[in-house]
C-alpha cells in the first residue's frame, strides 16, 4: 500500500462549508503499489470534493477494471461505488445517470480500460455528453498484469523488460476534443496544484468533463526510485492550503508561470515535458486547442491544464428531454397508465 494513514487527526482540522473536514472525504486504505501516482489523483479527488463542499453521499463513483479502477474504493467512503467490467464503466455510468440525474458521477478509468476494450464506450459517452467527470489515470501500461504496453504507450518507448513499443500511441485528450467533448483537461498526478482545481472545474461542468492524468506506474514503468514520499508529502503539504475554484478557466491557479514549460523526470530516466497553457490561450476555441496540442506533441512536450471547454453545453438529460425529477423516484402513480387506458389500447387491436 502507498501509505499508512495516521489514526490521529488534528482536532482542529479545518472544516468546509458543510462542516466536514477533509478526512470525511477519504476512502479505504489504498492497496496500490507504494508511490503509485493513482493515489495522488485519489487525494486530488478527495481534496477537490472537500473544497467544493460536496455531500459525499451525493456522489456515485464508477470504474472499470485495472489498477486505476480500484481507486474509487480509496476515496469518498460515504459514496456508493461501482467497480464494473473492463472498459464498460461508461455504459454503467450512463444508466446510473439516466436513473438519477441529481447525483454527481465520477468515472475513473485507466489507459488499458478506456483506450482498448473501452474505446467504443468512451467514444460514445463523449458523443452523448453525459454529465459526469471522467478521469483516465494514464500510465501507458497494464500495471495489474505486470507492465505490458497499453495503447497510450508512446511509439519507441521502452517498458521495464526493455521492449520497445512499436505502435502509435492513442492521444485520449485529442480524441476527446475531436469527438466533441465539452470539457477536456490534461494533468500530471504529481501536480496537485493544477489537478485539484481542474477536478473542481470538471465537477461544475454541466456535461462530459474529461481529465487525462498522466500517472506514472512506479513498479512497471519506472526502474528506480520511489515517489512515495514525493507524492505523499506533496499531497499533505497542499491539504491544508485552500485554492478557490474559479469558474473562469484562465484563472485556474497553478504553480507555474503561464507560458513556461517544465521537464518532469520519470523514474526510468525518461522525461515528460509539461508545458503550461499560453497566456493568450483560448480554452473556448476547439481548433486552437487541437493546434496547440499538435505543436506540443511535435516538440515532445505534454500540454497540461484545461485544453478546451464549452461552458454552455447541455447534457444527455436535456437532449432526451427527461423529467427534472429523478426517474428512480417516480412511482406507479406517475408511471402506470391504468386499466382504463389499457381497455382503449385493446380496442386498437380488434
Amino acid at each position: 500500500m502507498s501509505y499508512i494513514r495516521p489514526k490521529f487527526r488534528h482536532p482542529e482540522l479545518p472544516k468546509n462549508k458543510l462542516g466536514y473536514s477533509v478526512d470525511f472525504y477519504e476512502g479505504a486504505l489504498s492497496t496500490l503499489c507504494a508511490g503509485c501516482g493513482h493515489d495522488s489523483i485519489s487525494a486530488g479527488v478527495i481534496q477537490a470534493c472537500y473544497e467544493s463542499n460536496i455531500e459525499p453521499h451525493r456522489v456515485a463513483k464508477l470504474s472499470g477494471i485495472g489498477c486505476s479502477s480500484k481507486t474509487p474504493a480509496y476515496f469518498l467512503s460515504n459514496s456508493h461505488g461501482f467497480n464494473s467490467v473492463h472498459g464498460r464503466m461508461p455504459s454503467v455510468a450512463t444508466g446510473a445517470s439516466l436513473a438519477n440525474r441529481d447525483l454527481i458521477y465520477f468515472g475513473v478509468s485507466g489507459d488499458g480500460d478506456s483506450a482498448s476494450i473501452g474505446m467504443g464506450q468512451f467514444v460514445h459517452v463523449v458523443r452523448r455528453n453525459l454529465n459526469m467527470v471522467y478521469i483516465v489515470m494514464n500510465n501507458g501500461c497494464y500495471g495489474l498484469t505486470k507492465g505490458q504496453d497499453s495503447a497510450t504507450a508512446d511509439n519507441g518507448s521502452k517498458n521495464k523488460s526493455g521492449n520497445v513499443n512499436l505502435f502509435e500511441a492513442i492521444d485520449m485528450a485529442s480524441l476527446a476534443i475531436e469527438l466533441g467533448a465539452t470539457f477536456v483537461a490534461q494533468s500530471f498526478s504529481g501536480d496537485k496544484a493544477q489537478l485539484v482545481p481542474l477536478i473542481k472545474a470538471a465537477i461544475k461542468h454541466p456535461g462530459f468533463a474529461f481529465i487525462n492524468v498522466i500517472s506514472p506506474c512506479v513498479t512497471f514503468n519506472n526502474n528506480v526510485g520511489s515517489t512515495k514520499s514525493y507524492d505523499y508529502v506533496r499531497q499533505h503539504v497542499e491539504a491544508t492550503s485552500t485554492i478557490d475554484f474559479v469558474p473562469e478557466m484562465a484563472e485556474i491557479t497553478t504553480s507555474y508561470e503561464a507560458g513556461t514549460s517544465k521537464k518532469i523526470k520519470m523514474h526510468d530516466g525518461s522525461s515528460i515535458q509539461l508545458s503550461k497553457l499560453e497566456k493568450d490561450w483560448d480554452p473556448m476555441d476547439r481548433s486552437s486547442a487541437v493546434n496547440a496540442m499538435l505543436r506540443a506533441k511535435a516538440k515532445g512536450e505534454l500540454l497540461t491544464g484545461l485544453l478546451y471547454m464549452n461552458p454552455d453545453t447541455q447534457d444527455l438529460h436535456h437532449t432526451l428531454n427527461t423529467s427534472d425529477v429523478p426517474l428512480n423516484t417516480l412511482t406507479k402513480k406517475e408511471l402506470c397508465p391504468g386499466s382504463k387506458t389499457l381497455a382503449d389500447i385493446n380496442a386498437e387491436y380488434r
Partner: protein
Amino acid sequence: MPLSNNTKPVKAGLNDFVVRFANVNGTGSASANFLFTKAIFRMGIPVTPKNIFPSNIQGLPTWYEVRVSEKGYLGRREGIDLMVAVNPQSMDGDVSAVRTGGYILYDSSKKLHEQYLRDDIHYIGVPLMEMCNTHYADPRQRQLFKNIIYVGALAALVNIEFDVLETLVAEQFQGKEKLIAPNVQALKLGRDYIHEHFKFPLEFKLERRNLLNDAIMIDGNTACGLGAVYSGATVAAWYPITPSTSVVEAFISYSKSLRVDEASGKLNVAILQAEDELAAIGMVIGAGWNGARSFTATSGPGLSLMNEFLGLAYFAEVPAVLIDVQRTGPSTGMPTRTQQSDILEAAYASHGDTKHVLLFPSTPKECFDMTADCFDLAEQLQTPIILMTDLDLGMNDHISPALTWDDKRDYKRGKILTAEDLDVVERFGRYRDVDGDGIPYRTYPGTHPTKGSYFTRGTSRDEYAIYTEDGNAYKRNMDRLVKKWETAKAMVPAPQVYQKNNHSENGLIFFGTSQYSVEEAMDLLSAQGIKLDALRIKAFPFNKVVEDFIHSHKKVFIVEQNRDAQLKSLITNELSIDPNKLISVLNYDGMPITAFKIELEISRSILLSPQFSKA
C-alpha cells in the same frame, strides 16, 4: 424449394384452410395481406398469420401464411390450400408447395410458363398487372394496388364479407380519406373479376362466427413493450437486432403518449439506443443499481455479447430485465426465422457458477403479464431476469386474450432501505442474509450521508461488501446465492398443468410458442386413443411440480424448437430425475413447429414401444 411442404393429407373445409401469399419484399404486400387476416378476425373466426420473411429490405421473396381454424388451433399447419403466387422468383417452389387438390392464384397478365403447370391443382388466373395498368397511372399505385386487387379476388373466393374489408380500409386511411376510394375500387376489381370468370366461393370458405369474444390480435413484442410501460420501466437501453427491435419501438411509441409529464412536457422515461449490446446491458445494470426499473431487448447474438455483464449482475446482485426474442442460431444463423435455442445460454450466461431466472411466455397476453412479472422479480430477487420469447411470438400477430392490468397491483420494489431505515440500522451489510431467504437488503446511491454506502463489485467480498479473497467468505456468498435461487422457485410463475390428476403413464412437457401446436397435437393423439398428461413450463428455476410430474410418468416427451434438446438438458441438469425417460420432440428448421410433427413423433414412439400402452 425454399419452404418445405409436408405431404400430410389435409382436408380444407368451412373456416378451416391455409392460404400462403408469395410476395417480393418491399412491395407493399404486407399491409394487403394483413387486411386479409384482419377481415377474417373481424368475422369472429380464429386466424393465425405467420410472416416468413427474408433478412432483407427490398427485392427478395417473402411469404405470409394464414391459417384459419374454426376449432381455434393457432399453430402452423402443413399443406397449402390456396397459394397466392405473385412472385416470379419463387414461383417454382410456390407451385409445388400447394397440396394436391389445392388452388393457385397467379397473375395471368402473362401466360404461365409450362413448367409451372401441375395437373393435380387448380389455377385461378387474375390479370393483376393488366388491371392495374388499365386503372392506375402512377407506377407506385400500380404496384400497391396489385396487392389490393388480389385481396378483392380472395374475398370472392373464400367469402370475406365485403363491408368488413371496406370498414378496415376506411379505418386504415383515417385522415387520408383520399386513399379510401381507390383502395375500395381495387378490392372491387378483384372481386368482380372472380365473379365474372370463376366459380365461387371455393369448397373451403369463411362463414361468420362469434368465437373470439373480446380477443385482440397483437404481436408479442408490442405486448412486451406495453408491459414495460405498465410495470414502470423508466430506463430502456437497446441496440437494434431482429427480431427484438419492435419491443423497444413499441415501448418508445407508447411512452410518447403515456409517459409525458403534463405540466412540464418532459418524459418520465429515458430511452437510449446504445452503441452495441455490451453498452445496452451496461446501461440497464447502471440504472437498475441506481433504483430505476430498466430493461433491454435483444436476440441470441446480443445475448452472447451481454454474457459478461450478466455474470456481474448475478454476482453483484443488480436487478435487470432482458427480453430475449430468440431467432435461429448459431451465429447469424437465420435471423428472420424462429427458434427456442438460447435456453442454455440464457440459463447459465457468463463464466463461473451463474444461473439466471428465465420466464417463458406463450401468448401476447403472457408477454404483457410476464414482462411486468420480470420487473417485480428482478427487484425482489436483485438479479437479472430474462424473458424468453421468440420470433414467432414476437413478430407475428396472434389472437390473444385482451391485455389486463389490475389497478390494485403495486410495483414490488424489493428490499430497499431508506434513510429512515438506515438511521436505526447499526451497521449496514449489503450482502447479509438478514431474513434467511438469501435475499439481502440494498440501498440506492445518495440515500444517507453516513450510512448505507457500499462498493458494488464483481470481485469477491464479504457480507459488508468489503473486498476479500478469503475462501470461506467467498463460499458463504456463493451458498447464499443458491439459497436465493431456492427462494426464487416459489416466486416465479408456476407451470400450467393440463389435468387435475395424472391419468396417463406418458407425459408431455413444453414451453413458449410450442403451446399452440402441442394443444392441437394432444387432440389429434387423443383421437387415436393416445392420452397424455401435459405440463407447460413457464419459468426457470423449475419448481417441484415439474420434478413430480416427471417422476409420476414412465415416459415424458419434451417438445422444443432447437436441435440440441436444450430444455431437456436443463431439466436433466437441474432436477433429480431419470434422464432416460425423457424423449425429445424437436423442430429446428426455423419454422414454427406444427401439430402434425408432434403428433407423428409421439404416436410413433408410443405405438412402436414394446410395452405399448395407450393409457
